[in-house]
C-alpha cells in the first residue's frame, strides 16, 4: 500500500507544480515595494523650486514645524489628476502639503497646477528622480507623512482616495 502511494508521489508533486505555475502566470505578483525609511528621518535632499515666488523643497524644510504630507506627483502622471481633489480637500481641512514633482519641468508643472489646483506649500522639482530614490519611493503618486521632528511616519503608495481622508487626518493627529 505504502509503495503504491510512493509511486504516485512524483506525479502529485508535478501536478502541484503545474497548478502553482498556472495560478502565478494568470495572476503575476506585482508587489508594491515599501520604503524602508518609514520610522527613520527624511534623507538629505535639496530641490529647486518653480521660481523666486515659489521656493523649492529640501529636507531642512521638513525638519521643523508640525506634521505634514510630502506628495510625490508629476504633470505627466494620470492618477495624480485623480488625486488632486483629495489633496485639495486635505488642504481645506488644514493639512500642510509639500510637493515633489518627479521628472518634470517648471512650465508643465505650472500648467498642471493651473488645471488641477495647487494644494502645495512648497514644491521641489526632482528632474532626475534623486529625491524619489532617496526616499525609497518607486513612482508617482506616493505620499509620505512626516512628523514635526522630520521622521517619516507613513508611506501611502498610489493616489490618495476620498475614503482615505479620515485615516490620513487621524495619522496626522497621531504624529503631532
Amino acid at each position, binding site marked *: 500500500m505504502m509503495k503504491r502511494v510512493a509511486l504516485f508521489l512524483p506525479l502529485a508533486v508535478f501536478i502541484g507544480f503545474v497548478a502553482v505555475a498556472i495560478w502565478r502566470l494568470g495572476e503575476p505578483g506585482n508587489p508594491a*515595494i*515599501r520604503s524602508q525609511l518609514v520610522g527613520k528621518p527624511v534623507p538629505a535632499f535639496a530641490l529647486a523650486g518653480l521660481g523666486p515666488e515659489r521656493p523649492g523643497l529640501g529636507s531642512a524644510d521638513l525638519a521643523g514645524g508640525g506634521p505634514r504630507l510630502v506628495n510625490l506627483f508629476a504633470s505627466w502622471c494620470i492618477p495624480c489628476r485623480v488625486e488632486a481633489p483629495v489633496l485639495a480637500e486635505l488642504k481645506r481641512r488644514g493639512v500642510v502639503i509639500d510637493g515633489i514633482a518627479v521628472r518634470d519641468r517648471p512650465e508643465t508643472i505650472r500648467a498642471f497646477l493651473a488645471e488641477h489646483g495647487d494644494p502645495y506649500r512648497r514644491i521641489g522639482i526632482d528632474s532626475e528622480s534623486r529625491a524619489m530614490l532617496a526616499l*525609497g519611493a*518607486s513612482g508617482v503618486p506616493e505620499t509620505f507623512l512626516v512628523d514635526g521632528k522630520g521622521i517619516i511616519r507613513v508611506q501611502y503608495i498610489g493616489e490618495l482616495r476620498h475614503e482615505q481622508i479620515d485615516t490620513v487626518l487621524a495619522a496626522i493627529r497621531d504624529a503631532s
Partner: protein
Amino acid sequence: MNRGFAIPMLLLIAAAEAPLPDPSQEAAARALMHELRCLVCQHQSIADSNADMAVDMRRIVRERIAAGEPPAAVRAYLVERYGDWVTFDPPRRGSNLIIWAAPFLFLAIGAIVAARQFRKPRT
C-alpha cells in the same frame, strides 16, 4: 511630445547614459547594474531596462562609483531604501537562508534516496 522638446530630451538621455571615463569604474558600475532589480519592471535588472526609473537608478550608480564609493556601498544605499528586493544577490540571512540552503537540502534528500535504493538486496 513636440519636436522642440524631443531633441533636447534625447540629448539629455544620451548625456545621462554616458559611460564613465575610467574603464575600471565603468566595469564596476555595469556589474552592479546587472545585480540591481528595476523596481517598476517585471524581474529585469536596471542594466536591462529602459524604464525611466532604471535610467535614473543607473545615473545614481555611475555617480556614486565615480565618486569613489565601492559597489557594496552603492548597493547598501539602495537596500537601505528598498530592502533586499532591490538586489538579485540576496544576503544570506533571515528567511533568505531558505533560498541558499534549498539546493543543498534537496541534494542531500536525493543522495539519501539513491543510497537506500542501491543498498536494497537484488532479488
